[in-house]
């Protein structure tokens, strides 16, 4: 912000009492220096923030017309679609916003992995990001239950039953989660209350995430620390404009789905009202949970990884092992800053790790594919191989490569990478 702005008497009056404009200026204004070489992969943080706002706004309006009762929930959603003014638009925005949120956050996460953004001194920033992902998953799961369709009901049944795998107290915990003896009205009521609460928890976590970001500022594609003012440009106008441009492109894509393919990411079965007496033949979670679902289902008694972790079935049964593996697949990310011992952040200078990054990426996509297929025949074996690679990559390959690999020479600074290349 210009100095002229701060000379305005009204601004001065506010600033003297609460320096909110200075705070903004230092947070995302011209007084926030940012590495000058950020590429478009750095747009997805602000895009995720935009989607969070879209979700909260559309969600609050939907809540005004939704009834959290097993007898009315499905009908109230249909009423939103048919009778409420622009209800169809707002619901489709909210429905597709869930998918858009996960797309942005997954790209953001893989960006962080590719360029080593999780490394010292940004470990807490990364950990807060994993917490945001977990909170998002809980929110999305409970939101999906609210329309009370067949997938809502049976998804809720399968996922809450995961907790019954916990030894001794499992069944009591499931009863506590349900507030009854099956997924029923008390369950729907509490899921609605929590689905309304959790987005604001996410907002709180995002504030901490950004606080941690501003401590050591953004990483950059070269992964080298900024050495001085010559490596930086002010956030405003350079990155405010770049972020806004990204938001424009994003909105075109997003609204394409909202208007022309609103049910692309959804399951047709969820337009059938929940029936506790009939399980759909093929239960699948939303696409963003498919890789974890594949990991959950990979654990059968004859899976060698299960035989190892359970000491031949001695420690736990296959169900508990699957549940633990599913949670571990995300919680292990918390340890990434310490599992990766390489001092070099960016994969641009890590020739071997680069290859394995892409193998890991493909493995995650493949797990998603398997998660959407029925658990039978060769899909089981392929899921088990992909699950094994997932854990082997994080626990064995990342530490091993980081010790054995010889990185390429890294540039002295962001500026010298450009100047010494003959520009």
């Amino acid at each position, binding site marked *: 912000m210009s100095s002229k702005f701060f000379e305005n008497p009204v601004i001065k009056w506010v600033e003297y009492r609460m320096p909110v404009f200075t705070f903004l200026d230092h947070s995302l204004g011209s007084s926030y220096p940012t590495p000058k070489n950020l590429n478009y992969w750095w747009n997805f943080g602000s895009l995720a923030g935009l989607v969070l706002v879209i979700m909260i706004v559309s969600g609050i309006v939907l809540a005004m017309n939704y009834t959290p009762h097993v007898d009315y929930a499905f009908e109230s959603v249909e009423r939103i679609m048919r009778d409420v003014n622009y209800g169809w638009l707002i619901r489709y925005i909210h429905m597709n916003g869930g998918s858009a949120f996960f797309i942005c956050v997954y790209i953001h996460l893989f960006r962080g992995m590719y360029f080593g953004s999780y490394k010292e001194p940004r470990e807490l920033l990364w950990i807060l990001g994993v917490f945001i992902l977990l909170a998002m998953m809980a929110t999305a799961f409970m939101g999906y239950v609210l329309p009370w369709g067949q997938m809502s009901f*049976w998804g809720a*049944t*399968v996922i*809450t*039953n*995961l907790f*019954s795998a916990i030894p001794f107290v499992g069944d009591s915990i499931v*009863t*506590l*989660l*349900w*507030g*009854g*003896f*099956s997924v*029923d009205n*008390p369950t729907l009521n*509490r899921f609605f209350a929590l689905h309304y609460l959790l987005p604001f928890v996410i907002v709180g976590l995002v504030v901490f995430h950004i606080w941690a970001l501003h401590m050591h500022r953004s990483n950059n594609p070269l992964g080298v620390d900024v050495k001085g003012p010559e490596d930086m440009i002010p956030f405003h106008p350079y990155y405010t404009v770049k972020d806004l441009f990204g938001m424009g492109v994003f909105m075109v894509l997003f609204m394409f789905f909202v208007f022309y393919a609103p049910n692309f990411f959804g399951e047709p079965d969820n337009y059938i009202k929940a029936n*506790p*007496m*009939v*399980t759909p*033949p*093929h*239960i699948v979670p939303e696409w963003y949970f498919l890789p974890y679902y594949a990991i959950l*289902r990979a*654990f*059968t*008694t004859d899976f060698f990884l299960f035989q190892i972790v359970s000491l031949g079935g001695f420690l736990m*049964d*296959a*169900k508990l092992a*699957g549940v633990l593996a599913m949670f571990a697949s995300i919680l292990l990310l918390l340890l990434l800053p310490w599992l990766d011992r390489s001092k070099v952040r960016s994969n641009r200078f890590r020739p071997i790790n680069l290859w394995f990054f892409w193998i890991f990426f493909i493995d995650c996509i493949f797990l998603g594919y398997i998660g959407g297929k029925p*658990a*039978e025949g060769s899909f089981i074996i392929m899921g088990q191989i992909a699950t094994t690679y997932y854990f082997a990559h994080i626990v064995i390959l990342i530490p091993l490569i980081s010790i054995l690999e010889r990185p390429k020479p890294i540039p002295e600074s962001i500026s010298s990478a450009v100047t010494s290349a003959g520009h």
Partner: protein
Amino acid sequence: MSDTANPAAGVSDEEEKSRRDFLIVATSVVGGLGTALAVWPFVHSMNPAKDTLAMSTTEVDLEPIEEGQSITVTWQGKPVFVRNRTADEIEVARSVKTADMIDPESDEDRVQKDEWLIMVGVCTHLGCIPLGQKASEPKGDYNGWFCPCHGSHYDTSGRIRKGPAPKNLPVPAYQFLDDTTVKIG
């Protein structure tokens, strides 16, 4: 008032210090314990309410169920399978060795009357409802029930024989009120 904090009033520094330590520890313990106990009503409010608990039994008329037929009744919001088993099914369920099963249990322990198999029709893996109640549905490799969600096979006694489920289909508490009426719960 300030006397107690004043060493000149006959209380030494040492004594004063240990007294304060005691007060801090005692206050923290009582306060902490009280807060921890106050959590319970909030947690317990999420457990099944009294009206939910009140709807906990179901009576079933067995008269119309012929040999080889099954019906599904609702008990506590869950399906309960009631099957009038054929002599053949009982024979198969009893002749098999239980030792090699995932959850070993003899058929005799799972029924009160040989022909009436009554059990909760919820897969012990992740809570789907197994198929096999109707003649047209798949019954799995053991001619009992088959859960389509993750492929668990149950036999004619509702015991898990193959697949990811860890336990047999649970037998609820029930009693025969007379020859043709049973009360579940």
